[in-house]
């Protein structure tokens, strides 16, 4: 097998620099690449364009990069959990491009799968359709949407092997799967890195071919945004 594992997050993120476009997996705080985000803070790079479904919360996830004003532009579907975000956006410090969530996911998957563009009905007749080609299919208008381009995609899986094969858990799969292999370089961090042969080849969610570097993450906080409970 081709070996993809690197010893730590610093090596995994070699080549990441200011002004780059980065994809980051996760939905809310669920499945975010915590180690890679911490390293982006440490590297102190700036003017980043982030493609990420959400923008984290004030003091966690991408909120950490927003606090330090490292982000120039966010490309997201929902950014409602972050007051600092809203402040920067309304003051004009931060550019924001809002995209329907399904379109966001499919534009990642298209980049991953070498499809330059596709049609979707989402957003037709709304602000989102401005400047986009509209075409009818069976009498229903659709928008032409393009694959994303990005320098790095930073994703997080539950388990992975040294060949880069990934397995996700629960709803943490979300954007991590379609962002795998969707940028020039894809870095995967995993909660548990195992030797090849330990994962069932039938049960691999993302084959290693989509991954360029993989590393064993550490100190996962896995913060919960809305702890909702059923009373016993």
């Amino acid at each position, binding site marked *: 097998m081709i070996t993809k594992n690197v010893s730590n997050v610093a090596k995994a993120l070699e080549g990441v620099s200011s002004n780059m476009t980065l994809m980051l997996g996760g939905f809310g705080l669920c499945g975010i690449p915590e180690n890679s985000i911490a390293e982006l803070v440490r590297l102190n790079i700036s003017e980043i364009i982030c493609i990420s479904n959400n923008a984290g919360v004030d003091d966690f996830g991408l909120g950490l990069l927003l606090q330090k004003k490292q982000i120039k532009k966010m490309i997201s579907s929902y950014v409602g959990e972050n007051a600092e975000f809203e402040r920067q956006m309304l003051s004009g410090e931060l550019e924001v491009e809002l995209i329907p969530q399904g379109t966001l996911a499919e534009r990642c998957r298209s980049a991953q799968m070498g499809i330059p563009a596709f049609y979707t009905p989402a957003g037709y007749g709304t602000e989102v359709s401005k400047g986009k080609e509209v075409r009818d299919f069976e009498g229903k208008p659709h928008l032409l949407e393009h694959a994303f381009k990005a320098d790095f995609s930073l994703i997080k899986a539950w388990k992975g092997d040294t060949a880069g094969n990934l397995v996700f858990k*629960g709803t*943490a799969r979300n954007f991590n799967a379609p962002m795998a292999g969707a940028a020039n370089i894809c870095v995967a961090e995993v909660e548990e890195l195992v030797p090849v042969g330990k994962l069932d080849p039938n049960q691999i969610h993302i084959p290693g071919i989509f991954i360029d570097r993989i590393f064993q993450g550490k100190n996962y906080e896995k913060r*919960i945004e809305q702890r909702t409970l059923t009373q016993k």
Partner: protein
Amino acid sequence: MALDKNGIAQRIAQEVQYGFYVNLGIGIPTLVANFVQDGLEVEFQSENGILGMGPFPFEGEEDADLINAGKQTITALPGASFFDSSMSFGMIRGKHVDLTILGAMEVAENGDIANWKIPGKMVKGMGGAMDLVASAENIIVAMQHTNRAGKSKLLKRCSLPITGVNCVKKIVTDLACLEISNEGFVLLERAPGVSIETIKAATEGNLIIPTTVPEMQL
């Protein structure tokens, strides 16, 4: 008497049919799950990647890797499945989800809906709402009939940036259950004790009042 949030959810639950896959939005729609008739064989989809969503977990059983689209901790029922965001919206776009229930800030008499943006004030994003309303064939809106300032949310035209065009089929508010027709809002049912005049006064868009308008049966 106008319905409370649970009343609205209870009325909407009557629309859920045997064998339906249902996507519930944040807010009142989430409450609908509590009122679905037993034995109906319904599955709830949450667009962040689960089908077969169960109730909130008991304390100590919550899992950061198991949330719904509102970022709330949830559980998975036996027979559930997890998938990525691309497949999740494939289910939605491909019309595999039978019923979508979501909130709204405004609905127009032609079925347009606005629920994602108040320019200059609130810009949280559309999340999955634009995908849902563009593809779902069966969309029910759960909302208050008027806003906090007492102004109607059932309008001739949406004043806010819209989420989708000609897509809403039915609306359940604190005052009434209405259907969208080519001519406007058709008043199907009144909330218990609410008069037609009250509903008329609270509706800015064209309101079509059939000869009989029964009270909701809750």
